[in-house]
């Protein structure tokens, strides 16, 4: 890659400046302060960005104006041209635009690709350097650079072996690292240690199991002993408790027995239920007595109420008639209303009938009703009407058509005109004219023949069709020939046939009548012409125009004659049609008259006015129908009125008769009659109710009187039973019985208590046999000593129970533990875990070991390599160094991993850099840089080399040789050399062709 052009928009002292650079070497010559370093830094800035200054000031501000930055036009080895454009006000990348040859724009990524991975560090130290960098070896031994030196010849590109070793070590140390904490193996080993510890604990389990089983057996024996002792103590405690409990009941038993032996035993003979029987007998006596008293009272009350009741039997005998009249009364009221309605309807119908009679002109009712208004009659009027209308219409239509036909016949008769010529004459004249035409053609043919005969004729056009015919004949002939068996011969024969036919065609027109006959013919034709003209009615000297006009005239006349003939035929037809119509007219008129006569007959037969139209007649018939309906309805209403009056009169008669039978006054006013009926009906209802009540009371009295007798008998029986009971008990009164019964009950209660106390004591003693012993012991001992002994026994039980429970708990614990130990999975699980961990640790440690061995091998290889092979960089540097030093030094040794290089002179021992003069050291560094530049260029796009007056410390000879080396470098790399020394410029560019002045 080379820089074709540098454009600076603004950078330090430069503003809007540009430089075109040569392909190989360009020398930029300028005095101090001319801007060499500024331009060098501008190139660096455009390629790698603006540097930041520590004090915050801007690095090369564009104080001369313009935007800070610019662009480089780069040309690659491939010929591609790229532009790198960068601007910015501060440090850093700024705004970078990288434009590709195709115009695409990119940024840092594209620039990195262009620079082949070279970074600012590498570029500053190797490709763009001044005296300062050259003097400091540290810039060469910085890591990025040294790795290049040693990676260069290894074939490993940018990576150094040390890089690879570092990577491998990182990988290895992920598994294990001395003093690390989080590494996989470290953690695995730590876990293994834990698990092993836990397993050691768990492995004590068989011993523990054995001990537990032994201890459990001992505990079970002890438990049996304790259980036995505890049972004995508990029994003792229980017995004492019962003795103590028996002391109270025993004392009570003694007292009760004493009381029973000393008390009154008189009531003991009395039956147990004597008092209850007494109570029952007394109760039944009192109950019967009370019932009798209550019954008597009820009878008296009923008798009193029956006496107060009186029933009206007279009115009850007329119940049916009164109820009938009551119902009739309601109908009577409806009749009055119906009477009014019928009356009004009859009046209205009478009025309407009168209206109808008026409509037909004041006929009487009888006359109107005598008219037949049946449907047949109405239908007859319609039929007759239709006949009248249709005959009239037919007549009118025929009369119309007759008029029209007559007018047409008259018109046709006027139009017809007769021609002077008849048809035959016209045909004769036309035949003559036709023959005249034929004669004209014949005459023309004769003229032609006359011309031919005299040879003064021009070639006739009729030859052309003859020639065509000839061609066809030839073709047909040859085809016919080819159809034969021998095609060639056939063709020849055909050709001959064709030629013969053609010859005939050509010769024929030449043959014709002899010339001398022509005039005769002409004369005949002339004569015939004159005859024909005469026949055609044309002058004999008429020219062809006149003849033609005559022909046209004849044609017109013939057409007119034909039209007239057609008109005559049509007139005859019309006259015939007219006569036919007139006959039809007469027939229609007779029909019409017959229809009118029929209608008049119809009217007369029904005594209707003879001038009535069918429509009017039908209206009269409609009035008749309406009048007939009204009369019927009116008569119906009149009949209803009469019936209502009859019914009302009958009702009054029945009421009067009833009242007479009951001896009641007949009301004066007719309007009071209905209320009388209602009052009678109410009385009937009351009388009925009274009768039912009286009957009920009578029944009740009968029943009560029947019950009285048994009650009295029961009272007597009860009294007898009571007396019997007292006698049975040998007692005279009920009170005596009651006293004795009370004494007996008290003694029974004592005896019951004795039984209960004994039962309690038996329960305490356990059985009846032990009762005596228990009671004796209870009586013999005082409660305090008994209680003390019981407490002692209870304490022993509690103590033994506690000990037993403890034993049991321990037994349970041991059993559980034994079961646990028998089924303990943890030991197996931990062993499994350990096995897994161990397997993983083994795998991981193997991985680690493999890497350790790989590292050892790589390290060993690297050392061998360094020992046995010098990198290519050093070889290249050696070559340049030999050139610059004129062969004084044969070898450069750059042991990798060491911070220094050594040089070996042709004679003498090798020297380190600090054993070299400043000039020689700088020459060495320059040579090393050249080596690196060459190396870099082998693997990537070569970068331009920028040097800033680096030859100042060289003596003249060495400077000249160095210049030669630089020129050699410039054959493969672009070299931009800044200098303020014209002589340096001259050394590098003796012809001055590539030197640019910065001033």
């Amino acid at each position, binding site marked *: 890659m080379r820089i074709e052009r540098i454009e600076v928009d603004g950078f330090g002292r430069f503003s809007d400046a540009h430089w075109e650079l040569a392909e190989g070497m360009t020398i930029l010559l300028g005095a101090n302060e001319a801007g060499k370093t500024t331009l060098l830094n501008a190139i660096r800035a455009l390629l790698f960005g603006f540097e930041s200054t520590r004090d915050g000031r801007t690095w090369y501000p564009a104080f001369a104006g313009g935007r800070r930055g610019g662009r480089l036009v780069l040309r690659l080895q491939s010929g591609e041209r790229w532009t790198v454009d960068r601007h910015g006000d501060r440090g850093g990348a700024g705004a970078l635009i990288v434009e590709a040859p195709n115009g695409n724009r990119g940024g840092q990524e594209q620039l990195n690709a262009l620079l082949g991975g070279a970074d600012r560090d590498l570029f500053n130290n190797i490709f763009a350097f001044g005296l300062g960098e050259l003097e400091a070896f540290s810039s060469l031994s910085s890591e990025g650079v040294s790795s290049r030196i040693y990676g260069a010849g290894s074939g490993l590109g940018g990576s150094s072996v040390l890089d690879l070793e570092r990577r491998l070590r990182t990988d290895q140390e992920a598994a294990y690292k001395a003093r690390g904490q989080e590494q996989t193996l470290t953690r695995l080993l730590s876990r293994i240690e834990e698990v092993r510890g836990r397993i050691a604990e768990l492995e004590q389990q068989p011993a523990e199991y054995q001990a537990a*089983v032994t201890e459990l057996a001992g505990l079970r024996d002890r438990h049996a002993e304790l259980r036995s002792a505890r049972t004995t103590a508990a029994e003792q405690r229980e017995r004492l408790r019962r003795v103590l409990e028996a002391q109270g009941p025993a004392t009570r038993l003694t007292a009760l027995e004493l009381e029973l032996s000393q008390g009154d035993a008189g009531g003991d003979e009395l039956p147990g239920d004597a008092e209850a029987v007494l109570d029952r007998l007394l109760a039944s006596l009192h109950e019967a007595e009370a019932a009798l008293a209550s019954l008597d009272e009820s009878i008296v009350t009923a008798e009193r109420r029956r006496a107060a009741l009186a029933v009206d039997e007279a009115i009850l005998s007329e119940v049916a008639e009164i109820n009938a009249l009551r119902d009739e009364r309601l109908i009577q009221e409806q009749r009055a209303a119906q009477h009014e309605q019928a009356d009004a309807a009859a009046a209205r119908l009478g009025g309407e009938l009168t209206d109808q009679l008026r409509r037909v002109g004041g006929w009487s009712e009888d006359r109107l009703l005598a008219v037949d208004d049946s449907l047949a009659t109405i239908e007859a009027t319609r039929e007759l009407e239709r006949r009248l209308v249709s005959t009239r219409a037919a007549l009118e239509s025929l009369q119309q058509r007759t008029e029209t036909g007559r007018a047409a016949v008259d018109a046709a008769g006027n139009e017809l005109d007769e021609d002077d010529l008849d048809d035959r004459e016209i045909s004769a004249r036309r035949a003559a004219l036709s023959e005249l035409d034929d004669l004209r053609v014949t005459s023309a043919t004769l003229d032609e023949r006359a011309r031919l005969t005299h040879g003064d004729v021009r070639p006739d056009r009729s030859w052309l069709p003859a020639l065509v015919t000839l061609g066809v004949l030839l073709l047909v002939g040859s085809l016919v020939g080819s159809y034969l068996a021998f095609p060639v011969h056939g063709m020849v024969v055909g050709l001959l046939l064709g030629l013969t036919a053609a010859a005939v065609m050509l010769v024929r027109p030449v043959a014709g009548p002899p010339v001398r006959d022509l005039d005769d013919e002409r004369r005949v034709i002339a004569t015939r012409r004159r005859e024909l003209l005469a026949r055609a009615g044309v002058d004999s000297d008429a020219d062809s125009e006149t003849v033609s006009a005559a022909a046209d005239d004849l044609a017109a006349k013939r057409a007119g004659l034909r039209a007239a003939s057609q008109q005559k035929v049509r007139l005859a037809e019309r006259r015939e049609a007219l006569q036919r119509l007139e006959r039809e007219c007469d027939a229609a008129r007779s029909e019409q008259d017959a229809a009118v006569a029929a209608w008049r007959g119809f009217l007369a037969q029904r005594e209707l006015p003879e001038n009535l139209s069918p429509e009017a007649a039908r209206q009269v018939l409609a009035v008749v129908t309406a009048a007939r309906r009204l009369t019927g309805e009116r008569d119906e209403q009149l009949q209803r009125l009469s019936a209502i009056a009859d019914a009302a009169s009958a009702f009054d008669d029945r009421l009067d008769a009833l009242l007479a039978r009951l001896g009641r006054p007949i009301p004066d006013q007719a309007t009071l009659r209905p209320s009388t009926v209602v009052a009678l009906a109410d009385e009937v209802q009351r009388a009925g109710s009274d009768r039912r009540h009286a009957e009920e009371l009578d029944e009740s009295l009968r029943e009560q009187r029947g019950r009285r007798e048994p009650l009295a008998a029961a009272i007597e029986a009860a009294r007898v039973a009571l007396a019997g009971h007292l006698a049975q008990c040998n007692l005279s009164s009920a009170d005596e019985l009651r006293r004795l019964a009370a004494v007996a009950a008290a003694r029974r209660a004592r005896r019951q208590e004795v039984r209960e106390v004994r039962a309690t004591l038996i329960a305490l003693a356990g059985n009846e046999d032990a009762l005596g012993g228990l009671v004796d012991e209870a009586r013999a001992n005082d409660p305090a000593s008994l209680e003390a002994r019981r407490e002692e026994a209870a304490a022993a039980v509690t103590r033994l129970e506690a000990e037993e429970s403890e034993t049991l708990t321990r037994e349970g614990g041991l059993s559980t533990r034994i079961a646990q130990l028998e*089924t303990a999975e943890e030991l197996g699980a931990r062993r499994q875990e*350990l096995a897994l961990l*161990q397997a993983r640790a083994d795998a991981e440690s193997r991985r680690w070991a493999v890497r350790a061995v*790989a590292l050892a091998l790589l390290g060993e290889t690297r050392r061998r390599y360094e020992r046995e092979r010098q990198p290519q960089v050093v070889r290249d540097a050696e070559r340049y160094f030999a050139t610059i030093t004129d062969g004084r030094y044969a070898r450069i040794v750059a042991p990798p991993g060491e911070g220094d290089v050594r040089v070996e002179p042709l004679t003498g021992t090798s020297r380190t850099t600090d054993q070299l003069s400043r000039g020689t050291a700088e020459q060495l560094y320059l040579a090393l840089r050249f080596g690196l530049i060459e190396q870099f260029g082998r693997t990537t796009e070569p970068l331009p080399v920028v040097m800033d007056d680096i030859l100042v410390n060289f003596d003249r000879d060495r400077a000249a040789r160095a210049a030669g080396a630089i020129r050699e470098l410039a054959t493969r790399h672009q070299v931009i050399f800044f200098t303020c020394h014209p002589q340096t410029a001259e050394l590098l560019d003796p012809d001055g062709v590539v030197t640019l002045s910065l001033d």
Partner: protein
Amino acid sequence: MPSIQPFRFLHTGDLHLDSPFEGVSADAPAHVLALIRGATTEAWRNVVRTAIDERVDFIAVAGDVFENSSPTLLGQTRFRDGLSELAARDVPSFVVHGNHDPLDGRSWAPSLSFPELTHRFGTTAVESVPVMRGGLEIARVYGRSFDRPAVTANYAAAYRREADVPFAIGLLHTNVGDRPGHGNYAPCSVGDLRASGMDYWALGHIHKPGVVLEADPLAVYCGIPQGRDPGETGARGCYVVDVDASGTPSARFVATDLVRWQHVERSIDGLTDDEALQRSLGRSLAAASEEADGRSLVVRLRLTGRGQLHGHLRRSGYLDDLRELLNEETAAAPPFVWVESIRDETRPSIDLAARRDTPDFVGDFLRTVDAARRAERTTDPEEHDAWMATLRTAVAPLFDDAPRGRRHLRASRPDDAALFAELLDEAEIIGLDLLLAAEEDR
């Protein structure tokens, strides 16, 4: 031979109850772990169930019921519970003890009581116990238990058939013919077995089930009922032995395992992308699962071959992701196929021999590794010592300097030449991958 009563018995042994699964190096999901954890005891339950289902007349247990080195009471009680269940169904049991569970007075909990129908053979001499059915002897079992873990005497030589025995069964924990890879305890030869006059040898100690002698007598290693480490692949179980009226035994293997170990190897040759690899592995796992007889599988995958996928496999975390992806599909629920680990033994696709001759750093590296390898075989003691010192120094920080590493990583400590050779092989690939990746980055 006179006619005898036909009968049937079950031959098991090497139960190793409640002992851990070894060699699982990845974090297993809980349900996998649970199954693995209970697998030995559950397999013993399967043995008991088989005995009941097959209506055997008795069972013979050929030692190593549990592991003395990792004893748990649970293992012993589960054993006793199983025998009790059989006794409840009148099925007697005959037990000898082996190197892992010797009757040394310490291994077995002395207070553990066995059912009356269980006979545990003593340690002092070969005992014989008749097996009765309906008052008649159907067979006689001969046995002797180990009295210590390492019995070096030939017990089999003392087994001798007695007169009038209908069918003689020799029950013994032994290494027949000094099989390599197994402790040579109570060693004996095939000749000893033949000379004893037994009709059937019920042998224990070798975990792989198999027939030692086809006939005269039939001698069988019952194997372990449940494989417990990556080496114990395939079906594991017990034998049901039918003895016909002529006294001829025929043994039938019955699988009792719950989970099987399986090694699946797949070459990356010809595989071009991750998906192809995943698909191919998926197919391999499905095939393995189909052969597993409905059981869960713990699979060790080994990737071999060389190809472009090698670079992918070497990426950090790639194998873990791949394993998780595969397990997502197949290890969700029993019967599962759980990929326990994926071993990458693939090689980069470059021509190593050619590369070794290239005069650059990679070539130097390969030659260095070669030099280290050669040092294992060199006759130059100085070079050998120098290389061994280099390698020991490299691994010392973990295995020697770290106290916990010293304590817990003894088993994996690289201290012999063979192990170093393996490490060198792997280190070569790792270093090469790094260097080639750096080359590609150029």
